[in-house]
């Protein structure tokens, strides 16, 4: 049987954000904006959802009088991401076996 895919991660933009954050120490909002190609509004909403689930930490500060948002993945986020990847691997394994048969 498949492990259930975490609905919070099984979404294009949220998974993009988490995949970017898993490989770095921290990333700014503008970096995530550029790499994901999302709109500001949509990115803000999805970041808030990940923050509410405690998958990421969001720090607000200022740089040269402009607001600066920095995101970092939390240990809970890393665990959720790893579980999601495991579930995907299971899914792919089962699919491969089906193709063989």
């Amino acid at each position: 049987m498949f492990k259930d895919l975490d609905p919070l991660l099984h979404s294009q933009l949220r998974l993009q954000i988490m995949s970017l954050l898993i490989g770095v120490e921290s990333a700014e909002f503008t970096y995530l904006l550029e790499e994901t190609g999302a709109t500001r509004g949509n990115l803000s909403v999805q970041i808030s959802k990940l923050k509410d689930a405690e998958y990421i930490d969001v720090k607000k500060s200022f740089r040269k009088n402009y607001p600066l948002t920095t995101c970092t993945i939390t240990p809970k986020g890393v665990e959720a991401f790893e579980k999601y990847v495991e579930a995907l691997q299971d899914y792919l394994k089962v699919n491969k076996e089906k193709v063989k048969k």
Partner: protein
Amino acid sequence: METTFTEQDGLKVITEMIENSRAKIRDNGFFYLLWGWLVLIAGLSNFILLIVGFDKAWLPWPVLMIGGGIATGIAGYRLGKNARVKTFFDIAMIYLWNGFLVLLLFILFMAARGVISWVASNAIIIAIYGLGTFVSGGLLKFKPLIIGGVISWALAIITLFIPDIYSLLTIALSVIISYLIPGYLLKSRDKKLSHV
């Protein structure tokens, strides 16, 4: 849009994004070139001043090293402040080179106090230059830095078996091999990556 997001899509997104953040692990060689040139000029001018019999032949070192320290501090601060993403590579580099600096000052302090000879301190300094480039090369997966580090260690050993004054030339040679050559190669690699 979310309803049509499949498992394959999930895998594709993860692969793409991880590739993107991995591509951010880059180095334009600036610090290697800065320190490579400063140490090369300091070592060679110290050697020449000793040959011509100038009594403060060591003078190029404090002048160039303090200048380099200030330039590195400013450049590093600016780089850190403007970086929109901080990779684990960035963090590793900051700790490695700050630790390197502390060790370097400790060795110079020991030499100044007469606990170790200047030749021994030169040999150890060459060896820790090598450690710095060896580790950075490994993290960057950049062979010229790794090779430069290993050659520096060989030069550190050679330094112990040659007349004192020539240890300045082994320092010069080690920075050419472990800093300047890899620094220029990194610069050109970074330029190529920028055009992709």
